């Protein structure tokens, strides 16, 4: 690629929503010299086949990254912070009863 003086190496991260109500999921990244072209390229890469309901385009340098193992993977046993063994099912049923809302669709069996 020819060097024509444009800052082509600015990277933008693109998140996409596949259907209304779905979470925004990281789709990938594009390079573009400015915000407007970044949105155009995001649209072409992640929306030209009408596969996205919504896109978020974020300059990579605006993202705060946290990857310190001391913070994310501390060396002590933290299993007590996991919800396993704490059965929510009956508490949820009771709460729904108080609120007068019908049980959620599907089953609560897996909710712990």
């Amino acid at each position: 690629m020819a060097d024509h003086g444009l800052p082509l190496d600015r990277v933008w991260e693109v998140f996409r929503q596949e259907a209304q109500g779905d979470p925004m999921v990281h789709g990938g990244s594009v390079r573009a010299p400015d915000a407007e072209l970044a949105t155009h390229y995001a649209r072409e890469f992640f929306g030209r086949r009408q596969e996205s309901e919504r896109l978020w385009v974020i300059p990579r340098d605006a993202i705060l990254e946290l990857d310190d193992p001391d913070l994310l993977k501390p060396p002590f046993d933290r299993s007590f912070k996991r919800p396993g063994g704490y059965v929510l099912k009956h508490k949820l049923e009771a709460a729904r009863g108080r609120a007068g809302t019908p049980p959620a669709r599907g089953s609560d069996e897996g909710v712990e």
Partner: protein
Amino acid sequence: MTVAPARSLGPTESAALAELLLTLADDEFILGFWDSEWTGIAPILEEDVAMSSISQDEIGHARAWYELLAQLTADDADRIAFGRAPDEYRHAALLNHARGDWAHTVARRLLYETADAVRLESLTGSSYAPVAELAAKMRREETYHLLHWNAWLRQLTAAGGEARDRLVAALALRWSDAQSIFAPLAGEGILRAGGILPEAMAALQKRWHERLGQWLSAAGLSLPGPATDPPQPSTAGRTGRTPDFAWLHSEFTLVARSEEGATW
């Protein structure tokens, strides 16, 4: 494709509409083919995908116009698109030229897309419902194209130096041929009388100069030619053909010619 029920047309009105549809379809078709040639070699990967996609959009618009024309003339859209001799195409002279360098492509796109926007906007008021409906639908997509080429106008002018110089030179080079987008049609009087064409081509051309002038001036450029005394398009602007186009024609008819009458 389904279109709104059309009012009935007399034979002269029908022939005039067929001429208009052919110009609209051929413009989109030929531009789409020229710019599809950037696939694989555009300045950056992202632009490669964008340019290919935009070119496909134009072929899609051409198809819609060809299908409408085929309904009107009891013809076949593929036959019209691929089955004519080079001198039977009616695209504007602006589209007679090879894609050139990137600045040339951006310049031609700017000239064409701004003109097409003015033309489509006007056609949404057509008395012939299928034309009004298609124009409205295409405008939604063309608005994005317009933004894209305006973004490139800003990139190339902001970069300055050779990028800006090449763009300015390409705009000047194609200014005269670009006027042919608004070349008067043989049946324009008939189309105007029936409201199929809501405004005269000359009026659209004038509005195009105003709009383009605003876009260019926002980027620190001015119209490549005098706005008060614009080059007059002639009907020949849509009939003259070049060796460049003869080459493109041989390319895009290659597959269709390989087995005439085949069903694809």
